[in-house]
């Protein structure tokens, strides 16, 4: 509804400011201890605007976003479920907000208790032996996991292991992580049914194998049925098994990665545990490990002295084999508190229901979309909590691509699913409704898709030119990358 297109910098007027927000200026005298040579010569070009202008600018800007609080948002692999507002309130309690991360344990018992219980909760639900909450997102969890694999092999003097195996459907963070941990990546093909090509995997395994990273259910939206054979093959070769927990929502309470044979896993609390995505972050990527990796968990962790009932930090002084700290303090504390709230509200029964109802929703949506003429990528498979459609035929026949359909969905007030991922399925949608959406919300999406398929056949321009109702029309990405404009220059 707003016409706001100006940048905050364009509102700037010399000498204007939100006066109530800053202390009175100090005198030059009070700054005399700072040598002139170290002082800034020109004041930085930050916006000079009033308080109302700031509130109005960022309130109006916010209205240009889709969000879970406003729209169905079936972004596959991202688990855009409802973010309980109660979790936000609890994490924003002054006692938590004002606590300095380096406050002594004597002044941190409440916070430590939450972390300790969350560690235990995650251990139980994943079937792992130890959990560290330190990693700050999924990718950092992956990093921690693979670094632990590396530390494990190193500690055993098993130096020849230079390769990480990764199924080709994997998320880009997996290969990127392996490289960040100093490994080479070998991709493993995926079969027509969405399962890993077991024979190829077996061939790839060898004394150079440090481990395998995989997601299950995979990013193909199906459960990897040969998981035990895969586990055996990798373990037999002396490698370890890494579980990318981005899809944990699908199996929460139903199957535990620990029981499937994984040695290390990360969880995306900002997916499975309903913490908000904040337009790009923050997240939290706790790692869980089997017995053999316990010594390498990243620090700090929360520990409990059973006798005194006091909580304390477990740090590198007591766990010197740890891969160490991955942040200056203790990861994304506020996200952890939100996840703790969620876990406590759901409890045991609630955890089980997550897997069940997210799977129910996905299978329902898949069947209904197939019924209106959509093509499933793996039509003979059960959907997990998400599934893939391919529009390859439409792209060929009508020159209407997955991107076009995605853009047109916005006009129907539906956020688009994930597109062109995984890379191995052409013109694909990865669709994840989650357990928190009503059947009616899914039905609205189905209706929109039906209308768009109709448009694609009768009036393809409406689809290929979409969107029409958003603050901007389709953007020129090529220009963006070629004529880099990353910073406002007046």
């Amino acid at each position, binding site marked *: 509804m707003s016409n706001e297109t100006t940048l905050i910098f364009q509102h700037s007027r010399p000498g204007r400011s939100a*006066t109530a927000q*800053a202390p009175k200026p100090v005198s030059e005298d009070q*700054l005399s201890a700072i*040598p002139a040579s*170290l002082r800034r010569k020109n*004041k*930085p070009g*930050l916006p*000079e605007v009033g308080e109302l202008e700031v509130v109005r600018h960022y309130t109006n800007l*916010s*209205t*240009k976003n*889709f*969000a879970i609080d406003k729209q169905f948002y079936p972004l596959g692999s991202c688990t855009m479920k409802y973010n*309980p507002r109660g979790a*936000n309130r*609890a994490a924003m309690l002054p*006692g*938590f907000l004002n*606590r300095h991360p380096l*406050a002594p344990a004597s002044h941190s*018992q*409440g*916070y430590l208790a*939450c972390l300790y219980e969350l560690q235990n909760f995650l251990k139980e639900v994943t079937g792992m032996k130890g959990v560290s909450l330190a990693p700050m997102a999924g*990718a*950092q969890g992956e990093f921690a996991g693979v670094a632990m694999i590396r530390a494990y092999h190193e500690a055993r003097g098993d130096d020849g292991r230079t390769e990480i195996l990764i199924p080709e459907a994997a*998320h*880009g*963070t997996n290969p*990127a992580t392996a*490289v*960040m941990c100093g490994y080479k*990546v070998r991709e493993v093909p995926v079969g027509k049914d969405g399962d890993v090509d077991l024979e190829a995997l077996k061939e790839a395994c060898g004394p150079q194998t440090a481990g395998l990273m995989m997601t299950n259910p995979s990013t193909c939206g199906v*459960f990897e*049925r040969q998981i035990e054979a895969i586990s055996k093959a990798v373990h037999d070769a002396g490698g370890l098994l890494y579980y990318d927990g981005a899809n944990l929502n699908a199996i929460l*309470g139903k199957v535990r990665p620990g029981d499937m044979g994984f040695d290390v896993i990360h969880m995306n609390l900002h997916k499975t545990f309903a913490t*908000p995505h*904040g337009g*790009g972050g*923050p997240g939290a990527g706790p790692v869980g490990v089997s017995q053999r990796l316990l010594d390498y968990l*990243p620090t700090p962790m929360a520990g409990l002295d059973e006798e005194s009932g006091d909580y304390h930090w477990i740090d*590198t002084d007591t766990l010197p084999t740890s891969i160490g700290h991955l942040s200056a*303090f203790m990861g994304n504390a506020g996200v952890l508190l939100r996840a*703790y709230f969620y876990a406590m509200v*759901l409890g045991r029964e*609630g955890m089980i229901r997550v897997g*069940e*109802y997210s799977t*129910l929703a996905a299978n*329902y949506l898949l069947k209904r979309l197939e019924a209106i003429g959509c093509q499933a990528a793996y039509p003979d*498979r*059960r959907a997990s909590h998400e599934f893939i459609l391919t529009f390859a035929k439409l792209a060929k026949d009508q020159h209407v691509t997955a991107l076009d359909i995605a853009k047109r969905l916005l006009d129907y007030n539906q956020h688009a699913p994930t597109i062109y991922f995984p890379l191995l399925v052409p013109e694909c949608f990865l669709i994840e409704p989650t357990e928190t959406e009503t059947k009616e919300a899914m039905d609205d999406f189905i209706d929109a898709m039906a209308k768009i398929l109709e448009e694609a056949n009768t009036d393809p321009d409406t689809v290929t030119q979409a969107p029409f109702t*958003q603050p*901007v029309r389709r953007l*020129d*990405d090529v220009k*963006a990358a070629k004529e880099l404009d*990353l910073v*406002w220059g007046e």
Partner: protein
Amino acid sequence: MPYIPHTEDDVQAMLAAIGADSIEQLFDEIPAHLKAGHSLDALPEGRGEMAVTRLMAERAEQDRFALSFIGGGAYAHHIPAAVWEIATRGEYYTAYTPYQAEASQGTLQVIYEYQTLIARLTAMDVSNASVYDGASGLAEAVLMSLRANRKSKSRKVLVPDALNPRYRGACDAIVRNQDVELVSVPFCNDAGQTLVDGLKEHEGQDYAALVISQPNYFGSLEDVDALTDWAHANGQLVIAVVNPTSLALLTPPGEWGADGEGADIVVGEGQPLGVPLSSGGPYFGFMACKKKHVRQMPGRIIGRTVDMEGKQGFTLTLQAREQHIRRSKATSNICTNQGLAMTAATIYVSLLGPDGLASVAGHCHANTQKLADKLCALDGVERAFSAPVFHEVALTLPQDADTVLARLAEKDILGGLSLAKDYSMKNAILVNSTEVHTEGDLDLFAQALKEVLA
């Protein structure tokens, strides 16, 4: 069912559409013996929002505000109420990464504004959309410097001992996996500064970069011009680690060096810009660089462009650097970043403006000076170093630091950080004051310390 809206009718209708008899049947591809069964029995029963809120309120209560003078990389500042009331609007709080640009112009424009703010504050050319935090950001900067320094083949980077030891720790934990070595640079025991003298032994050797922290861990101000020029003269890139509040007063890293050549990469902890202490996170790392290095920078970057009608719009750009496109050849594995904290920072900086931020910085400095004076008025308490400081200062006590701090904590005063473990300075503490402290707060600390030392 908490957060699950389905009625029994809904479930039946959905199963019918699927052609399944039960939800359980949907899991029939999973080997039966793998199913979790009773293995979750140890988990607690779910409770309602009321009960969990009460529990967490009691927990938060246990950790309630004590008068704190701890800094060490995270600082208590006044955060305007508007910052988080707006940042937690559902539209920012519950959106995903702006993959569908047309439906995410709000977040995208905020990031573009943020990039501009960071660039201007640091006097650098470009900024990314945030990394996890300052310490892990330094690791990214170190790895980036290896790629960006075409003149060097080294996998070594010079890192001053006066750098926040938590930064060195996290950085090392990350980069050592790629066999990168952080080579230590001593500081002057009198001044508490990193001197060019201490670098002399590395002259003529190949290092990818020199890290310069301004201020350093002791709060001391480094002679950044001299250090920058030395590094450049020796074929190294300069990685600046800076406190963003201080930049309202101090020479921005983009202008360091006698000729203002500037640092090549800048990182830092963004927390002081409107993010609550919150037990350590979520914070955000900011990262900026010279334009020529932009393709080596990790993390998301937003560009301004036009739509098909020529209207201004914002979009993710240079994605070919990122893991979801470049996979194993990406500049980093980072995906989810710290978007919301960065949004808050953008609002914070807009509210403060250049003069407001300078006032905040000025008060931090003045209060810290005042605090140091008050504490040094006590017998046996002295400044540990002679260098000028920004808003943190190292003091030596006449007694064991850890013991003194513990006794202060009993009085609900968190009197700073001990330098015993990290620097073997058994009697030294690091104290910080910011604009949140009143004169009365400083006096309380001085009084309490007096009692403890008595």
